[in-house]
C-alpha cells in the first residue's frame, strides 16, 4: 500500500470526514439535556425573567417579578404550592424542573425593544437562562420573541395584547398565555350592545404602535358588525401626555361613544382628560355619552382613580374570580405580598408553571421538546376555566373577562368589577383569520 497519492487537500477532507464520523456517535448518544442552547449540566436550571424594572411600567414589572418569584418557590417545593395544587396536569412534583432546582435571573426591559433584547441576550449568553418570561408591551414581546427564536430558547410572553404577537410576528419558540385585541373585541361587543344599544357612533383614540393598531382594528370591526358606526380614528403618539387636544374634537364630532385604545400612562391620562371635559355627563344624538377602554389592568385603574367608574373594558384575568385555581393563587400571592395579584402577574406566574410542566411532560429542556409538549395542550385549574394552547399559532384560548369601573369601591384594590365572563368559544377564531395573517410560525430552533 502506498501513500504516494495523498495530497494536502485530500488529507484535510479525510480528516474532516473521519472527525465527523467519530463525533456522530457521541452526538447520538447524548441525553436529552444537550444539543440545545444553555442545556443545564449541574443540579440547577436558570430561568430568565425579563420585565420592566424602570420606566413607566415599572410597577407592573414589579408585580410580574413578584409572581415569577412565587412560581419559582412553588416549583422548588416551597410555600403552599399555589396553583400547582389545582393545575390539571400533575407532572410537577415540587422538586424543581426535571429534578433540577430552579433559579432565576432578571432583566430590565425598560419597555424599550432594544433594551429588552439586550437584557434578554445578556441573560441567555451570560447567565445561561434556558427560557425568557415576562414583559409588559407588545412591541417588546415581538422583539424579544424574535431574539429567542434566533437564540434557540423558549419565550413565554407576559402582558402582550397585540394581535401581531401570535399573528404576523408569531414564532415557533414563542408562546402567549395572555389574550389579544381580537378576543377583547369579541368579548366586549355583545356587552356593549346590551349596555348601549346597536345604534352608536364611536370615536377612537388609538396609541400609534402595533398594539394600538390591532386593538382598534379589532374593536372597530366587532362594533361595526353589531351596527355601530366608526366616526373617526385618531392616532396619538405613544409619548403623548396631555390628550386635551385630541379630546376636544370629540365634542363636536357627532360621536356618542369614545373608545380609548390606550394602555398604561396613556390610558390614565386620556381617560382623566375625557372625564375633565365632562364627556360622561353629556348627551349626544339623544343618548348618554359613553367611554370604552378595551384593555384594563388593575394598576391602570388605580392610576385613573374615580375616573374609571362605570367605564367598561376587558381583562385577561382578575383576582376576584372564584374558581379554585384563582383562589389558590390569590391566597398564595396575597399572603406573601399583602396585596392581590394583577392580571400581568397572573399570566407570568402561569407561564412559568406551564413551561416547567411542559419540560416535565417532554422529559427534556430541549426547546423543541417543550414546543411539542405545549402545542395543543389542554389544561384547567390555572384560572379562566379550560384552556387550549393552540398549536397553529401558540395562542392560549380561554374565557375573557368584561370589566367595569366600580361605582363604590370599598378599598384601594376594589376598583373594577366583573361584568361578564365571556366563554372561550365566543372569542375563538380561525388560525388563518385575516387579522392574524402574514406570518409563519416556522420551525422550533433548539439553538446550539
Amino acid at each position, binding site marked *: 500500500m502506498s501513500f504516494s497519492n495523498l495530497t494536502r487537500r485530500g488529507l484535510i477532507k479525510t480528516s474532516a470526514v473521519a472527525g465527523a464520523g467519530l463525533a456522530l456517535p457521541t452526538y447520538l448518544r447524548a441525553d436529552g439535556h444537550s444539543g440545545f442552547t444553555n442545556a443545564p449540566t449541574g443540579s440547577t436550571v436558570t430561568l430568565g425573567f425579563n420585565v420592566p424594572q*424602570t*420606566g*413607566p*411600567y*415599572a*410597577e407592573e414589572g*414589579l408585580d410580574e417579578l413578584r409572581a415569577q418569584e412565587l412560581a419559582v418557590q412553588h416549583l422548588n417545593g416551597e410555600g403552599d404550592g399555589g396553583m400547582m395544587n389545582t393545575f390539571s396536569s400533575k407532572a410537577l412534583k415540587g422538586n424543581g424542573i426535571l429534578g433540577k432546582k430552579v433559579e432565576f435571573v432578571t432583566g430590565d426591559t425598560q419597555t424599550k425593544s432594544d433594551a429588552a433584547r439586550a437584557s434578554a441576550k445578556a441573560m441567555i449568553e451570560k447567565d445561561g437562562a434556558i427560557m425568557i418570561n415576562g414583559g409588559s408591551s407588545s412591541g417588546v414581546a415581538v422583539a424579544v420573541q424574535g431574539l429567542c427564536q434566533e437564540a434557540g430558547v423558549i419565550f413565554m410572553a407576559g402582558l402582550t395584547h397585540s394581535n401581531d404577537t401570535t399573528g404576523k410576528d408569531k414564532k415557533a419558540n414563542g408562546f402567549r398565555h395572555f389574550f389579544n385585541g381580537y378576543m377583547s373585541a369579541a368579548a366586549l361587543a355583545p356587552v356593549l350592545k346590551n349596555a348601549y344599544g346597536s345604534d352608536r357612533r364611536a370615536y377612537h383614540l388609538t396609541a400609534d404602535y402595533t398594539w394600538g393598531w390591532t386593538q382598534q382594528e379589532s374593536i372597530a370591526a366587532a362594533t361595526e358588525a353589531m351596527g355601530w358606526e366608526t366616526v*373617526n380614528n*385618531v392616532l396619538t*403618539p405613544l*409619548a403623548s*401626555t*396631555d390628550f*386635551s*387636544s*385630541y379630546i*376636544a*374634537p370629540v*365634542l*363636536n364630532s357627532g360621536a356618542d361613544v369614545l373608545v380609548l385604545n390606550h394602555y398604561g*400612562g396613556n390610558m*390614565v*391620562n386620556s381617560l*382623566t*382628560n375625557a372625564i*375633565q*371635559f*365632562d364627556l360622561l*355627563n*353629556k348627551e349626544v344624538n339623544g343618548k348618554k355619552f359613553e367611554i370604552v377602554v378595551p384593555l384594563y389592568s388593575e*394598576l391602570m385603574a*388605580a*392610576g*385613573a*382613580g*374615580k*375616573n374609571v367608574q362605570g367605564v367598561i373594558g376587558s381583562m385577561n384575568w382578575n*383576582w*376576584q374570580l372564584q374558581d379554585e385555581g384563582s383562589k389558590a393563587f*390569590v*391566597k398564595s400571592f*396575597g*399572603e406573601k405580598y399583602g396585596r*392581590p395579584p394583577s392580571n400581568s402577574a397572573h399570566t407570568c406566574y402561569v407561564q412559568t408553571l406551564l413551561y416547567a410542566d411542559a419540560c416535565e411532560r417532554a422529559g427534556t429542556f430541549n426547546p423543541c421538546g417543550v414546543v411539542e409538549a405545549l402545542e395543543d395542550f389542554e389544561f384547567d385549574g390555572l384560572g379562566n376555566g379550560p384552556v387550549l394552547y393552540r398549536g397553529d399559532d401558540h395562542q392560549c384560548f380561554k374565557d375573557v373577562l368584561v370589566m367595569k369601573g366600580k361605582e363604590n369601591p*370599598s*378599598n384601594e*384594590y376594589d376598583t373594577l368589577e366583573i361584568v361578564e365572563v365571556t366563554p372561550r368559544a365566543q372569542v375563538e377564531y380561525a388560525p388563518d383569520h385575516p387579522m392574524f395573517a402574514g406570518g409563519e410560525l416556522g420551525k422550533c430552533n433548539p439553538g446550539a
Partner: protein
Amino acid sequence: MDAIILQFLNGLDKGSAYALIALGLTLIFGTLGVVNFAHGAIFMIGAFCSVTLQRILTLSSETLSETEKDFLGNPLKIKTPYVESWFGPEVGASIIDWAVPLAILLAIPVMLFVGFVMERGLIKHFYKRPHADQILVTFGLAIVLQEVIKYFYGANPIPTPAPSAFVGSFDFGPLLGLDSSLAYPYWRLVYFGFSALIIGAVFAFLQFTTFGMVVRAGMADRETVGLLGIDIDRRFTIMFGIAAAVAGLAGVMYAPINSPNYHMGMDFLVLSFVVVVVGGMGSLPGAVLAGFMLGILESLASMNEIKNILPGIDQIIIYVVAIIILLTRPRGLMGRKGVMEE
C-alpha cells in the same frame, strides 16, 4: 369655529404650563447663567407636593369591619382619615377635597428650600464651567430626583383630583352667542388663571421692588452691580429659589390635569427649552410670549381638519416654528444682544 375656540383655550392652558416652566428656566439662566436641565424635575416635585399633602390629609385610623371581608377573606380594614375624626366627617372631607389648592402652602417653602439646596449644594460649583458641563450635571440631577420620587411613590401615576367644586366644565356657548355647546373644564380654566397670576406676580416683583430692581440690574451688568457693593450672588441664589417655587407651583396645580408620575418633568423639559430659545435666551417676556404662542399653535395643529391635510403636523409644529423663528430672528422673539453669543 367651535373647534378653533376650543383648541385656542387648550393652547392657552398648555401655554400656561410651558410659560411657567420657561419663566423659571429663564430666571435661572438670566441671573446665574446656568442651563438648568433639572427644572422639569422641580415641576415634578411640585406636583408631588400635591400628592404628599393628599396623603398626609388622608392618614387614617383603621378599624376592622364586622361584615365586610378583604381579598384574603380576613375582616376588611375600614380606614377613617384623622381629619374626619378631628373636624367631623363633612369638614374633614372638605379639607381632603381641597388638598391640591392647599398644597400651594406646602409647596412654597418646600420648593424654595429645594431650590436653595440645589443651588448651594451643587449648581454653584458649575457657574464657571462650560454650558455642556452644566447641562450634564443638571440632567444627572434630574434623573436622581426622578428615582428618589419613584422610590418613595412608585412608578404608577397617582390620581390627585381637583376639588369637587371644579369638577365638570363651563359652557362658553351661550356666553359667545353660539347655538352649540362649547364646554371647557373648570380646572383648566383655574390653571390658566393661576398661571397668569403667578406670571404677573413675578413680573411685578422684578419691576416694582428694590430687590427686583437690583436683580434686573445684575442681569444686565453683574460686574457693575457687584462693584457698587451689592451682594448680587446672594440675590441670585434667592432668585434660583423663586424660580424653583414658580415651577413647583406650576406642578402643584397641574396635578389634577394629569395624574402625577415620576417622569412627568421630562415630558415638559425639552419643550420648555424650545420655548426659552424661541422667546430669546434670558428674556422673561419672551419666555411667556413663546410659551403661549407655541401652546396655541400646538393645539390648533391637533385639529383633525389640519391633520387631514398635513398628517403628523401636531408633533412637529413647535419645532418647525422654532426653526423658522431662529432663521429669521436668530436671538429669538425678544432675545437680547450678547446673550450666549461668544
